[in-house]
């Protein structure tokens, strides 16, 4: 049974916009202009595409946020992710970039209101994946720092490694993330103990560390291009037990910077750059 000639005229062709709206909204009817063989009904046929799109994007979110997925359980996560997918489609065919707004969504999604740490766990997981795909780069070594004239050090600025991220949280985000990813129990963790996290890729693999007091502000300022002197002073203001030597050796070990530049008076010296 073919559909009427009236529907088949070019003026009545359903634009792809109708098709795409119906793809992600199960309450919309099957779009005009699609059919099974011989004009047969195509509701279940269109549902194949609906299912492919939604399940595909939900699966992508499961892959990007494995700790959040385990924390809330598979069935719940998938229901929640469907709500997000309807509101927020990827803007790029690079699916590993999807979910940038998922943490904010978690903050406003009432059914997880009691899991106040969840959004920050998602932020850490998003940073982890960004670090995983970030450009390869040299890592600043102790000898690079050692080559700087000690009196120039306070004026030194650093070049952020592409895979380095700092996350400041009011929750035990690193402990929860680490225990979850290594399959350990969370029962000993107080979720309301504030933690600062550091994500980096000093060698091949992405590493996540918890930062000591003052280190987050120290590193965040350096990443923003402030001088070592400014960053150290700010960190000491924030945390009276901030230890500069420990912070510097920690930042070298974690590979947070790719290079260093000294800019005093008219002299400008770059030891090495993100040449990769």
């Amino acid at each position, binding site marked *: 049974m073919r559909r009427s000639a009236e529907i088949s005229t070019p003026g009545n062709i359903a634009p792809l916009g109708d098709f*795409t709206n119906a793809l992600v909204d199960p309450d919309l009817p099957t779009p005009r202009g699609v059919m099974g063989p011989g004009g047969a009904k195509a509701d*279940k046929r269109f549902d194949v595409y609906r299912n492919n799109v939604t399940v595909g994007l939900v699966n992508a979110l499961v892959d990007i946020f494995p700790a959040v997925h385990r924390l809330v359980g598979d069935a719940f996560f998938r229901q929640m992710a469907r709500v997000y997918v309807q509101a927020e489609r990827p803007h790029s*065919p690079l699916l590993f970039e999807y979910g940038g707004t998922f943490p904010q969504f978690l903050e406003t999604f009432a059914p997880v209101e009691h899991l106040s740490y969840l959004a920050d766990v998602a932020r850490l997981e998003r940073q982890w994946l960004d670090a995983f795909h970030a450009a390869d780069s040299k890592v600043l070594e102790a000898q690079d720092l050692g080559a700087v004239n000690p009196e120039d050090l306070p004026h030194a600025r650093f070049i952020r490694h592409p895979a380095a991220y700092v996350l400041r949280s009011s929750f035990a985000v690193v402990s929860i993330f680490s225990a979850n990813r290594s399959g350990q129990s969370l029962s000993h963790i107080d979720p309301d103990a504030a933690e600062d996290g550091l994500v980096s890729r000093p060698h091949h693999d992405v590493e996540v560390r918890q930062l000591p007091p003052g280190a987050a502000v120290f590193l965040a300022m350096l990443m923003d291009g402030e001088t070592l002197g400014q960053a150290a002073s700010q960190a000491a203001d924030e945390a009276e037990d901030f230890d500069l030597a420990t912070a510097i050796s920690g930042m070298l070990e974690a590979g947070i910077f790719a290079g260093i530049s000294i800019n005093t008076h008219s002299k400008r010296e770059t030891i090495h750059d993100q040449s990769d």
Partner: protein
Amino acid sequence: MPATSGAKTHINARFEDKSIPPRAGAGLKAEHVDAILQDDYHIGFLEVHAENYMGDGGAPHRALNAIRQNFPLCVHGVGLSIGSEKALDKVHLDRLKKVVERYEPGLVSEHLAWSTHDNSYYNDLLPVPYDQPTLDRVCDHIDQVQEVLGRKILLENPSTYLQFDHSTMSETDFIAQIARRSGCGLLLDINNVFVSATNQHYRPLTYLSEFPLEKVEEIHLAGHATDTDDDGRPLLIDAHDRPVDDAVWKLYDIVIGQMGPVPTLIEWDNDVPDWPVLRREALRADEILERRAGNYMLGSRHAAVC
């Protein structure tokens, strides 16, 4: 400019094994990389989804470099949205160019489908109507891709679940015209042929008899799932989550009998098994390719597909 292209070839010649042999290959999964590199069975080639290697760096590129140094490679795009109503995403096309330049694949392919609309990416291979405006647009898009990449691409036939009431030509006619006008080659997915034929109620052999096999440079094989349509009849889903169906192997045997050996990829993208399971599928394709290579005779093309 022969001098320039010659110099470029020299500079870019980082990998050997550029051409894809008429053997079985497999879709590369990160979890199989070590097993493939250590296996005594040296698979004919590997194929990657281009989008998975469009990140800037890190583990994916490290793994693919190791693979590429040991195997010929095909790059298969899934996100270019060649069937789009609107212009191609130039940024994405440039990303594809970068992947192609980085890994020097023997073949580059994309789909007759769309996946992006109004700045949203739907992560599926959505169907196009087979009408003149769509044909013109797809040809323009392929021209653009081939121009930017500086090489021929292969276009893959889709698996479809529905049709558009304003289509004016058959899928095979549509594809044949694209290949003729744009000069692109074709990637024949025989599982897609079987899935679409079942879903659209025609015979797969009829489709194959109308398909321009002389333009086919690669074959895809994959597994499908079975559902039912609105009338309770079988509706096959291109699931890539299980072994290739026997009916698809049978069609493959016939096609290889017609065409002679062609590079043949086993795709398995969901519920991915351990490497030996995928290798078993590849060996089954190798066996057919070897058997048919022995008795394939020039001039027999198209004779038996009817």
